[in-house]
């Protein structure tokens, strides 16, 4: 795994970063911001894009996906701020926005923002995201607050165990955000090859999944994450069954890949979503 030393404000890498605000179109890469509610996703989003997406100290602040851009090391990135979610299985409207984008939006890299003070609880979502994509960077946010509580997170150990990069940051002060971006760039370009931690089912279970995957791919061509859909079908997830039988799945795939300029512009202008 490519590791960068701590990028400080004076490093040349800092000069390679530029906020692109709500500029839409012409992006080289798409990066999604996922995480539990109130872990600082919108704060990080604002720090990177220079936008003023409304932030506030309460869970459930972001209910739609906001989009913005930044430039790093010569490449233009589209950043998508998703509503906070505890898992990818439940289905309130805001959580579905997040889930659908992660599943069908094909981000080049997903940054899962976790709260350093509540790592264990936050890790369930990380593992669920790892089930559907291996292009993940974990941003361990709010390390300053955790430190005050006497909690320290060893991000090296975390990265080793999860099989993806993990970077400690303080989004509010942009501390270490450059190091995070470097990891994001490496994962998005494929330079960093990750080996995500995945819980294996029994051999019979794996066989069942492998039987369904080609069927799903044949029925809904171009669908990403056929494996995830197969697992949900084996679980008897009614909403996934419905999406499949009504053709909503194909529609979802198409919609997630279309630019959602309407939302991003609205939020950039109005903030108070």
């Amino acid at each position, binding site marked *: 795994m490519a590791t960068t030393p701590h990028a400080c404000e004076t490093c040349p890498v800092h000069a390679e970063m530029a906020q692109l605000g709500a500029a839409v179109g012409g992006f080289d890469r798409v990066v999604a911001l996922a995480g539990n509610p*109130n872990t600082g996703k919108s704060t990080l989003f604002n720090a990177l894009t220079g936008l*003023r997406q*409304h*932030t*506030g*100290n*309460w*869970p*459930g602040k972001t*209910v*739609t996906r906001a989009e913005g851009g930044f430039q790093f090391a010569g490449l233009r990135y589209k950043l998508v701020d998703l*509503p906070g979610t505890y898992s990818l299985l439940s*289905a*309130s*409207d*805001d959580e579905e926005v997040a889930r659908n984008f992660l599943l069908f939006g094909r981000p080049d890299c997903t940054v899962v923002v976790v709260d350093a003070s509540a*790592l*264990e609880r936050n*890790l*369930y979502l990380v*593992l669920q995201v790892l089930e559907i994509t291996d292009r993940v960077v974990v941003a361990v946010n709010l390390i300053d*607050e955790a430190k*005050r*509580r*006497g*909690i*320290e*997170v*060893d*991000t090296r*150990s*975390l990265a080793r*165990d*999860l099989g993806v990069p993990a970077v400690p940051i303080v989004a*509010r002060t942009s501390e270490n955000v450059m190091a995070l971006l470097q990891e994001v760039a490496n994962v998005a370009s494929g330079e960093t090859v990750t080996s995500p*931690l995945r*819980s294996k089912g*029994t051999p*019979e*279970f794996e066989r*069942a999944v492998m*039987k*369904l995957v080609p*069927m799903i791919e*044949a*029925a809904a061509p171009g669908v990403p994450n056929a494996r995830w859909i*197969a697992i949900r*079908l*084996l*679980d*008897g997830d009614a909403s996934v*069954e419905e999406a*499949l*039988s009504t*053709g909503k799945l194909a529609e979802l795939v198409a919609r997630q890949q279309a630019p959602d300029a309407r939302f991003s512009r609205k939020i950039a*202008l*109005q*903030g*108070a*979503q």
Partner: protein
Amino acid sequence: MSTDVISPADIIREAGALRRSLETGFREQVVTSLYGEVERVSRRAVRDHGSLPLELDQKIDRIVTSRWLGLPLMLLILAVIFWLTIIGANVPSAMIATALFAVEDWAAALFTSWGSPAWLTGFVWHGVFRGLAWVVSVMLPPMAIFFPLFTILEDLGYLPRVAFNLDYLFKQAGAHGKQALSMAMGFGCNAAGIIATRVIDSPRERLVAILTNNFVPCNGRFPTLIMLATVFVAAAFPPAVASFVAAGSVVTIVLIGVLFTLVVSWALSRTILRGEASAFTLELPPYRRPGMMRILYTSLIDRTLFVLWRAVLTAAPAGAVIWLLANISIDGVSLATRISDALDPIGWAIGLDGVILLAYIIAIPANEIVVPTMLMVYMATGMMTELESMNDLRRLLVDQHGWTMLTAVNLMLFSLLHNPCATTIITIYKETLSVKWATIGALLPLTIAFIVTFATATLARLLF
């Protein structure tokens, strides 16, 4: 696998068959192993030096969310915010009004000296510009004080505590506890509050939250409430206590709004949206020191200027409409007078008058412009053409148009309860994709507003 086309139904059937072939509880095993994995990973990565709970946070929470002190403290905080807004806004409001009306006179004179016809000067300066001047001077100072204070609470982490305190009441009403959050957003803007109901999973409870969001006054209505509380209610008391009375009456109105939210939620949960309240978890995040720059940006640019801009956009055409209504006459009587006369009987029945109702009709696009619209219609139909201070305003309304305490109180109630603005109604439609719910969302509050103000007017006339 066969080569012919695979239908979704085939896949679902196959998945069902495979599921049955697997030993029961296969998924539980996976989930259990996931939990075990999480625990192992986190144990290795976290060095917990006794995990000091944020002691100060806990101490504050013990008071702020306590059974007995939680709600009174919330009301006290709200009252202090309104009081600061009221005492702080008066002087700048008057200064801005004086300055802008001086501009109006100066510019109108300039227009006339350039040979502009009277109707053009009147339309542009006494119509459109005066509308704008009123909106800016009445709304800007209170918002510039109220929003930063509210944003500090939001950034601090107080809102989830409010939800926590109100959870019990919402549960009793058959509504979702998170409705307290969308309600709190409604104080900023009801359209935003309705979008915020997306955090509620259950469609039934989400609809309850959408239909009742209107009962908290948005920032388009706060200036109206604050003005009425200051100019009418507080004026009946000695100056020493006037600002406290004004703040107290705004808090009372907010309380009535919350009461209606709960009662209507309760009624909906027992009639057209029958069901029980579902359980939910809500995190109480640690208190965080608000970032000063962020607060100023959010409250002044995102909120104050956004609202003001919206008001300006709607006030300009409204000013034009009013000017036209006041200056187009049929048989020597202006349209404004004709319409307001026609509305007078309904207005009287609910303790208001025809002009106020006309103002509410013109102001459907945005609640922000109700008061300016009302004043412009009064001024256009009355003798007085200029207002220099809040006292002039009082004289205009009381002496020339027969306002009483009942008018002021009922206008506050009507403003609190009446139909949401057009933007909010459109938002209800967009969120529910149902004409039926959008219609109910508009007519239910309007009906309630008429019933309540009719009741208070009748009662007041019987008693006094």
